[in-house]
């Protein structure tokens, strides 16, 4: 299996772009580890993820009608290599991925880190009396005055 | 007749439906009063009520949100569009292909969706009672209606109302058991959807029993007028739906002459009157059901619809 990425069928530039997108996402994941602690880190990561997803969405939409393209990448099983194929069904699936990512990433920018969804604590149905929910301030959830006027 | 003629008929139908809706309700109330040996208000009383409400000022609860003010218009619009798509005096309307029976059912569902939300908006427990029960009733009535649509679609091989009416009119479908089941199921669903006696009492003021009334408790002035009109339009829709599918005689075919159209209107008016009297008779002869007997009532309608569909397979393929 030659080391370079041989292309059996006509591998449209779209497929190579998509592979580049996936590789970029994986690199972003690796890069995000040191960034996680820095202040602007999450914004940078989510912004980059949003950009890549928009790119993927674009290429997927453009290749909905196109002829299927396939690609064999060196990493993968010895005789088989990592085979990738972009046909219409894969394009529809990618639309979903790209769209979801492109919408979720900007949303995540607005979602301050450290806001534990369970922060308000579990609890069965609302207690009879008005809950005196005093809660330490943790970034996003506003601190609630201990006693709320009945 | 061309497009303009078609448009004319379509707009004539929409205007006719809108104009006669309060009259139909007036006739039903008058008939019920007479059956209960009461004088009863005049047949035109609903018009006066609507006019009075239009002139009064709208009192909104402090907690009412923009949705509360916009909901009546959306509810009225959805119901009016649905009513306009049901052929009354002529089939083959210009816009009949924009929507079929499933879309009409869904339009009524969206009207109910916004009505239930508006009911909950003010934040009183009565709005909650109304919306909660309305949603329970609709979660059974809508599947029954859709099973009805299946039966009609299997008989007429189409869900377009005008095509269904055409098939019923011309091809001599003949008496079929499944159609009879479908008729009974449609009547039951119509009673449930319009909040008539066995399910909900339209003229009640006893909080615990009301469903439709509880949701619109906080409305007043023009908003209440919109919702009342929407309710009356829905009654006209269901009666003309029953008329056009099961009593299709007198429907003017597409592109018919003005005379045929006039005959169509008369036939339709007659059907509406007979329908109103039957409804009044039915309502005075039955008492309101407990809320939790309603699921059995509507469950029966769903089973009738499903049975109708399955019976149709048997009769069609034998």
């Amino acid at each position, binding site marked *: 299996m030659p080391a370079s990425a041989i292309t059996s069928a006509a591998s449209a530039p779209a497929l190579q772009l998509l592979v580049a997108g996936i590789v970029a996402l994986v690199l972003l994941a690796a890069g995000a580890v040191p960034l996680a602690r820095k202040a602007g880190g999450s914004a940078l990561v989510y912004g980059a993820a949003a950009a890549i997803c928009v790119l993927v969405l674009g290429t997927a939409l453009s290749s909905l009608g196109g002829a299927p393209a396939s690609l064999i990448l060196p990493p993968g099983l010895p005789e088989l290599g990592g085979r990738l194929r972009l046909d219409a069904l894969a394009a529809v699936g990618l639309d979903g991925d790209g769209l979801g990512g492109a919408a979720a990433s900007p*949303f995540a920018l607005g979602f301050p880190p450290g806001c534990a969804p369970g922060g308000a604590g579990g609890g069965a149905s609302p207690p009879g009396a008005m809950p005196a929910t005093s809660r330490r301030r943790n970034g996003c959830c506003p601190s609630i005055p201990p006693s709320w006027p009945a | 007749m061309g497009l303009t003629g078609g448009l004319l008929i379509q707009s004539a139908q929409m205007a006719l439906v809108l104009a006669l809706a309060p009259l139909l309700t007036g006739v039903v109330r008058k008939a019920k009063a007479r059956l209960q040996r009461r004088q009863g208000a005049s047949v035109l009383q609903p018009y006066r009520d609507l006019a009075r409400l239009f002139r009064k000022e709208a*009192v909104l609860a402090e907690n009412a949100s923009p949705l509360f003010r916009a909901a009546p218009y959306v509810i009225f619009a959805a119901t009016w569009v649905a009513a306009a798509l049901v052929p009354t005096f002529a089939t083959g309307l210009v816009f009949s292909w924009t929507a079929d029976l499933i879309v009409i059912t869904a339009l009524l569902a969206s009207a109910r969706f916004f009505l239930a939300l508006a009911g909950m908006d003010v934040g009183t427990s009565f709005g909650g009672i109304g919306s909660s029960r309305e949603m329970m009733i609709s979660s059974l009535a809508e599947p029954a209606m859709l099973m009805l649509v299946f039966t009609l679609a299997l008989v007429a091989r189409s869900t377009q109302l005008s095509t269904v009416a055409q098939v019923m009119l011309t091809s001599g479908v003949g008496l079929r058991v499944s159609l009879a089941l479908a008729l009974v199921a449609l009547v039951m669903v119509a009673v449930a959807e319009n909040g008539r006696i066995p399910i909900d009492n339209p003229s009640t003021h006893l909080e615990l029993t009301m469903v439709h009334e509880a949701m619109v408790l906080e409305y007043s002035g023009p908003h209440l007028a919109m919702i009342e009109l929407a309710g009356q339009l829905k009654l006209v829709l269901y009666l003309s739906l029953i008329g056009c599918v099961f009593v299709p005689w007198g429907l003017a075919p597409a592109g018919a002459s003005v005379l045929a159209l006039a005959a169509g209107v008369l036939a339709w008016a007659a059907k509406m009157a007979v329908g109103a009297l039957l409804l009044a008779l039915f309502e005075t002869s039955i008492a309101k059901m407990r809320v939790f007997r309603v699921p059995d009532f509507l469950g029966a309608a769903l089973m009738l619809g499903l049975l109708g569909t399955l019976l149709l397979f048997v009769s069609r393929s034998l």
Partner: protein
Amino acid sequence: MLPFYPAFLAGMMLVVLADDAFTFLFGWEFMSLASFALVVSHHGVAENVRAGLVYLMMAAFGTLALMLAFGLLAAGGEGVSLQALSFSAMRAHGPTPLAAAVVLGLALLGAGSKAGLVPLHVWLPLAHPAAPSHVSALMSGVMTKVAVYGFIRIVFDLAGPPAWWWGVPVLLVAGPTAVAGVLYALMQTDVKRVLACSTIENIGIIFVGLGLALAFEANGAPAVAALALTAALFHVVNHALFKSLLFFGAGAVLVATGEKRMGMLGGLIHAMPQTALAMLVGAAAISALPPLNGFVSEWLTFQAILLSPDLPVWGLKMLIPAVGALLALAAALAAACFVRLYGIVFLGRPRSAAASQAREADGFTRTAMASLAVLCLAAGILPGPVIDALQGAVAPLVGVRMTGQGHLAWLSIIPVAEGRSSYNGFLVFVFIALSASLAALAVHAFGSRAVRRAPAWDCGFPGDDPLAQYSAESFAQPLRRVFGRSLFAARETVTMPPPGDMAPARLSVSERDPAWAFLFAPLGRAVSALSGRANAIAHLNIRNYLALVFGALVLLLVVLALWA
């Protein structure tokens, strides 16, 4: 938590692009593990960790099923080389009918456990809410779609021509999934759990479409199969849109109030108007209301169901209308579920201090939600172009394309035949908008424009305690009483305080998930019992271990003797 987000996206994209079993499973497992890491990102809360573990178990089970399925598919090839693992080799020599049937079952298990088909859905209401909102939006909106893609790729593309009965198991699982999913959503009081359970319902609708496509394709009606498959794919796109929108709204509410329980929210429309508007569009779309996109895919599915009498097989003829009834029931219950969710969270009066001091979400959130809401409306109004775009994917799978919808007059869609049925989202929207504005004009022109604010009439009762409003449990009480009593063993218990004690009485609702009670709990007990007994092996002494080694050796020799 941050690095796993791009990894999760990369994994999903890799699965979709994979053209051989190894890359597919590699991407699949990569996606599962990344999403597991995201689910337990808030590991401070105990229930998140439990949810993560249950999710990991189900993900492993799903991958095992898919691995076996690919093994069967690859077995078709002649030589025992790795080349057989590539999808093109699998397509070249399809599996034997028996192997194909087993592959269908395995694909249903594998993809079904990830998508959330009923018996295997138990992890979904636990895992999706545990993740941060943007991740649960991705998991519900996109990851379940990757599972559906996996099912379609294996069953429609690789497993060769379907047998006549292939539609039956899929429909038998999909119908109950739709109804059970939405009924379970009605019982929940946590916003994100309601959304996760409604994902189960939408997956049921998608698999009904897939089951219909299988049934029609196998019984010689490829045109209707194309319609059913298009309906399923259309609903895949729709669900990705409005479910992400709803999860973003839930996230915005969570950020604004720090509260997930519906019983503590209420009246948020006053504080968060734009979020409320976007959520209204999302709720209306998922309840399949006409001008929006949810209705179009359900309408197409119903059109496919209406064509069932053409099928020669009696079983399918009876099964499909029954599944249609289940679908209609699920649609109506979905509307009830989202009236409840929207009404209790956004309308009414705030039920807690947190809800009363909520603030509107920030710019990014609102733009993300607004864009998705506009897409929902666009897909609802212009279904034709979307259907044509999907034909590229449908044609190779069922062999035939649906008739072109893009160019039809007035943007309407006619799936099968002119006289049969047609729907025009655009005109319906125009009519509603026109008549609503007409009515508004008439009121402003003739009616009185005076508006006065006054305390709510409420039949004269002065009570202003916000807890007197309907809560999540009380709104679902009629539906719980009608549907939930048998299936979910829903019980309401009232605990009265001892006489003389002034403590308030409490009414609590208890329900259990039948899949958990009858399938997974006994399984868990059996496993722990077995492992209890097997635990003794860990505490043998050296000599016993030697005995074990010796026993194994002797056993192998005996086998060798008997078998060689």
